[in-house]
């Protein structure tokens, strides 16, 4: 079955540093979604990318979808303590199951 892998598993940064998490799928994705889960919370939908090579921005967050639609990245510029949490990518498989990556846990030192 489809697998969605994310790296790194953990990232510990100093406040103000940048952060990037990468997502790779074993198969071509129809779309990719990104979610954020704060400690003790539930996943919250951030964005969806659909087109090959698509780039979207939300303030300090930049999301990219690869040309082959098999990989994606989330980049945060100048992290803040409010960015702490686990970031998940998720892709739809051929049977419309949304498969989540293993997540990248971001820790920010103030």
């Amino acid at each position, binding site marked *: 079955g489809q697998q969605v892998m994310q790296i790194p598993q953990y990232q510990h940064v100093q406040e103000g540093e940048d952060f990037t998490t990468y997502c790779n799928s074993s198969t071509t994705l129809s*779309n990719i979604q990104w979610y954020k889960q704060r400690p003790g919370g*539930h*996943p919250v939908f951030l964005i*969806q990318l*659909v087109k090959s090579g698509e780039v979207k921005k939300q303030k300090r967050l930049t999301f990219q979808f690869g040309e082959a639609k098999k990989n994606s990245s989330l980049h945060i510029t100048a992290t803040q303590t409010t960015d702490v949490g686990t970031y998940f990518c998720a892709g739809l498989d051929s049977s419309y199951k*949304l498969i989540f990556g*293993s997540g990248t846990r971001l820790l920010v030192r103030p």
Partner: protein
Amino acid sequence: EAGVTQSPTHLIKTRGQQVTLRCSPISGHTSVYWYQQALGLGLQFLLWYDEGEERNRGNFPPRFSGRQFPNYSSELNVNALELEDSALYLCASSRGRPLGYGYTFGSGTRLTVV
């Protein structure tokens, strides 16, 4: 607009028992999804219901089952509980089929099996 609501929030059960978890989707959302999140791990797809029908299920044994009611609310049933069933069970809803819409998650039910 009320979000996705799940009940109960916490539950402690003994191995071998049965449990029922409940989920009410956002008004207007017809699809409901169930995920299992073991402590510190990712989300594993359990079940997808749409318009009252089970549309897909993940790689879980048959003792995990559920249903969706005419008002689109849903139940997840787990029979013969095992220790490894201890996890956060998340319900999510979306408007229609899962193509083009993000999922809205509830706060989850924390199940502990002892």
